[in-house]
């Protein structure tokens, strides 16, 4: 079974003094990261945890409320619940297709005889290194319902396109489309790397045994690629559950608050920012953030569980 956390190599047990010598060096190597994490992540997190127990208007007197922020979020706050649903829905809707399409393209590109392979690879990766603000604007124009390129193209094949960002039923799907476009190259690279690590001999052996391309893919390539798929899944879910920037640049403007129409794209992080920076109050948003953190933890653990059961070999 593979996991992100795997035991390092175990060698013949060294002597105790050698072990403590090694441990000391391990912490020398870890020290810079740990100090910086402490300063820039754990300390601010601890403060945020503290905020979450208060009613804390920025810049003025705070009031201790215990777990009341959490209680309100979990019991009273329908908007928060809705933002959780939106976020989970987005994550499923974006991660699965991105992985499937990226896998498909990686398999196509993994053919040494393919001409212009490097060029294709570069092009598919390019969206990863572009400015989200700039492409967010472009995507808004592409998704415009009456004249936008996407619906125009759908019109060519006889489909009457939906309202995308203007419609509460389709806005999230519009964001999914942009996310798939943007992240495809990243996953493709992970899969390409995984594919290239598969020894030719195994595939050749399968061919000699008479396995067709689909069977070779299904029974040889796919299982061997499992660690890469797992990694892509975990990263995808962690990023998906923190959905923010795409919504911010595609549904918000100075004339319109992000998260609409009708809260259909209001993710948890958008909600947190809304609850913090509009009333300029830290407590409630921080509590929501910790609930999100727990949610991400749980989903990631479930993922490990599922993958373990499915692919034990």
């Amino acid at each position, binding site marked *: 079974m593979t996991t992100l956390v795997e035991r390092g190599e175990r060698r013949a047990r060294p002597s105790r003094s050698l072990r403590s010598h090694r441990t000391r060096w391990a912490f020398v190597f870890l020290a810079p*990261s740990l100090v910086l*994490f402490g300063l*820039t992540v754990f300390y601010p997190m601890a403060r945020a945890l503290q905020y979450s127990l208060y009613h804390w208007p920025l810049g003025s007197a705070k009031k201790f409320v215990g777990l009341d922020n959490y209680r309100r979020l979990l019991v009273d706050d329908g908007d928060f619940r809705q933002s959780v649903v939106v976020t989970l829905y987005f994550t499923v809707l974006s991660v699965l297709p991105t992985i499937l399409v990226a896998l498909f*393209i990686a398999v196509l590109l993994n053919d040494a005889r393919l001409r212009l392979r490097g060029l294709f690879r570069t092009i*598919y990766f390019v969206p990863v290194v572009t400015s989200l603000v700039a492409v967010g604007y472009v995507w808004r124009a*592409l998704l415009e319902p009456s004249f936008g390129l996407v619906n125009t193209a759908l019109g060519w094949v006889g489909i009457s396109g939906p309202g995308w960002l203007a419609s509460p039923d389709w806005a999230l799907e519009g964001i999914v489309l942009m996310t798939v476009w943007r992240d495809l190259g990243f996953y493709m690279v992970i899969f390409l*790397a995984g594919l290239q690590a598969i020894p030719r001999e195994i595939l050749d052996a399968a061919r000699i045994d008479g396995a067709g391309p689909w069977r070779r893919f299904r029974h040889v390539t796919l299982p061997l690629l499992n660690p890469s798929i797992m990694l*892509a899944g975990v990263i995808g879910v962690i990023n998906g559950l923190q959905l923010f920037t795409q919504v911010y640049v595609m549904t918000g403007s100075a004339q319109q608050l992000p998260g609409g129409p009708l809260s259909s794209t209001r993710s948890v992080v958008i909600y*947190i920012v809304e609850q913090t920076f509009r009333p300029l109050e830290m407590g409630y948003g921080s509590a929501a953030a910790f609930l999100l953190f727990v949610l991400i933890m749980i989903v990631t653990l479930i993922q490990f569980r599922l993958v373990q059961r499915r692919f034990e070999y």
Partner: protein
Amino acid sequence: MHATTRTVDVSKYLLLTVGALTMLTPLIWMVLASFKTLPEILAFPPTLLPEQVNLDNYHAVFETADFVRYFFNSVVIAAISVVSVLLTSSMAGYAFAKFSFPGRDALFVVVLATLMIPFQVRVIPLYVLASDLSLLNTYAGMVLPTLVDAFGIFLMRQYMMSIPSELIESARVDGAGELRIFVSIVLPLAKPALSALTIFTLVMSWESFLWPLLVASTPDMYTLPLGLAQFAGRFLNRTDLQMAAATMTVVPLLIVFLLMQKRFIEGMATTGMK
């Protein structure tokens, strides 16, 4: 048989080409828009080619904002972040991959868990901290949240696990110190992973907006994304100038990626390994 292979090949290229064009469309649109006038960009239905190629937007960008200075700041900040992330990640990744010590796996989980915390949550405490440390409006303050990266540590650990431990052991037997082993054996072998990490850190640093906005308090400390945001007003977005500025922001990053991409792919090779 031959004919089928042909058809398969043709459809494969067709598919890849259509896909590639789709991927490029938004970027091409951005570059072409940077040569258009504002009414032309806002025209509907949208046009692809500019009526005439003129560089007015680029001139205007340089007139309204000190883009050379912003570019310089972005480069400085990206450089510090990249060096710091490469250093901290390779050191920590090495410790996680090649040392066994009590609590190692738990610590690694803690490090990975930091990926699950949205930045928006810790931004205010971090800002107060930067202010307490008198780091506001300094390069040190601007780079604070991007000095260390859990994904980088993960990437380096995965790669370094593929380095044979015998190499390290034999160097130890030859009497090499731990630091020397790290610098002269481990780091050179990890070059592909370092390249991959460079690209990711660069993209992250180059794009970051909220933090530099909070920390910078004078225009001479602005970075490119802050410069870009200067063309967005409450009632009017100067999309024409934004596209010119965005093009200038994105192109350097693309060039770096093109130069490094070969190593980059190799560097990703071990991400999915055990």
